């Protein structure tokens, strides 16, 4: 490895160190952005233009903010409590069981391109997390600790991500499938989207089995 290669990895080093030392993420990103500018040998004006233009290009990422007034309004009227009560009526409720069901729905919906069924703001926070928390209370007579509640909420978010990531890749028109096809086409290799999507199935099955086994084991471990 020569010096130029090591030098180009400086921005990655900044990110790794910043997150490892538990610095504020916004500060880590800023420091890494400056490091990347220095490594690229950019003029400060070009750096600012890249910053501005690439930000403007990805503004669509915040569209989900438009769902927050609906969620907040329903939460103020007792939606989270309602979600909890629905689960409390099911005696066999366990967080793991509930989340295995959610994983199956999320992953298969995503495989059919229905990625908007789910998500952290519109689904996990108002419904899945309070349901899972209510399910911990069905599990034992002693009230769960705050740490156990937080672990369960984090597991809800993790389940949503796993379901989405390893479902959407099976959908023919998904961006990643088309990106792979375009990349291979540039190299003179013709691949059909169907072939790429089909070869994603073994990994998708492994993802479901591994994550569901963890969730099942989580329920087993507790009395």
């Amino acid at each position, binding site marked *: *490895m020569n010096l130029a*290669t*090591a030098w*180009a*990895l400086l921005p*990655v080093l900044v990110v*790794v160190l910043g*997150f490892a030392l538990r610095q504020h*993420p*916004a*500060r880590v*990103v*800023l420091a890494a*952005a400056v490091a990347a500018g220095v*490594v690229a040998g950019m003029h400060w*004006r070009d750096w600012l*233009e*890249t*910053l*501005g233009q690439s930000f403007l*290009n*990805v503004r*669509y990422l*915040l569209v989900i*903010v*438009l769902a927050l*007034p*609906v*969620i*907040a309004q*329903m939460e*103020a009227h*007792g*939606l*989270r*409590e309602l979600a909890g*009560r629905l689960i409390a009526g099911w005696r066999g409720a366990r967080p793991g069981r509930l989340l295995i069901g959610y994983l199956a729905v999320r992953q298969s919906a995503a495989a059919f391109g*229905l990625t*908007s069924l*789910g998500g952290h*703001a519109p689904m*996990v926070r108002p*419904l899945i997390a309070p349901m899972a928390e209510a399910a911990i209370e069905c599990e034992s007579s002693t009230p769960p600790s705050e740490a156990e509640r937080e672990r369960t*909420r984090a597991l809800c*978010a*993790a389940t949503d*991500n*796993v379901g989405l*990531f*390893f479902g959407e*890749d099976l959908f023919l028109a998904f961006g990643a499938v088309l990106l792979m096809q375009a*990349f291979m086409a540039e190299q003179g290799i013709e*691949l059909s989207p169907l072939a*790429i999507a089909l*070869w*994603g199935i073994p*990994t998708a099955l*492994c*993802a479901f089995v591994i*994550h569901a086994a963890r969730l099942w084991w989580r329920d087993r471990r507790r009395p």
Partner: protein
Amino acid sequence: MSLTPIYWLLGGYFALIAVRAWRDRERPARIARAGFFAMLSLLYLVGDWLPPALAGVGVLAIALIAGFGLPLMSAIAPAANGAAGHPRLLLPVLAIPAITIMLTLTLPYWRIDDKPVLGGHLPALFGLTCACLLALALALRLTREKAALALARGGDLVEAIGWAILLPLLLAVLGTLFSKAGVGDALARAIGALVPLDVRWVAVVAYGLGMALLTMAMGNAFAAFPVIAGGIGLPFLMQVHGADPAPLAAVGMLSGYCGTLMTPMAANFNLVPVALLDLKDRNAVIRAQIPTAIPLLAANLMLLGVLCFR
């Protein structure tokens, strides 16, 4: 059709949040909070007409406020009267995905003079926007309250998420800067220099782990794929070892997704939910994902070795 109307809607909402933050003298860091949302609102409202360098100054300003000025707040408040609501409260929440899916599938066919009426090539974003507006109307009808109150409650939620809301955008910006600095190519070169890629299983492992590592560094498997597939997949696995390109691409990308599960750089998946679910440990979601990601990555490496060389 461009996304400008959606950006105006969001910009208007951020402006409303800025005004509320400015008027509210009770909570700390009033100026920082108001300034953050005012600047964000400007980038959404007039971003299309701003010179990029000036927009860059705005981005720098909000990133600095996010990093040094915004306080942390609790994101989860109990119901106003603490009681469980009527089951019909589920309707607006379920309406969001239902309407989004319906519109995403049908918008491309709503045509006048063979031009899409709404959405163009981005029906999902327009579908989600319309779904949120319709669900809000339904929510207001069911709760018999004024729109201003729901918008204020949503605003409190946005403020509680705080700086985390900005991270997905900042990280996308960083990804662009990384590719300008040649970070990905350097990482592929470093892997190539450190391990003997002419040994088949070494090349398989380097390809799968390289996808995961570069995805962790860039926060995005899409950015990592051309670099690793071009640096290791094509010249070594395919040309030297004769791997089948279809499973190589598919399983390689999914190895990258294992990296996405393990990195704070994928902010909208791993950090935004930390704020939304009011978790104290900033890495709680990543911690919950690592025990799935690592065995799955190992499974992917085995699948690569088996499926590519049948």
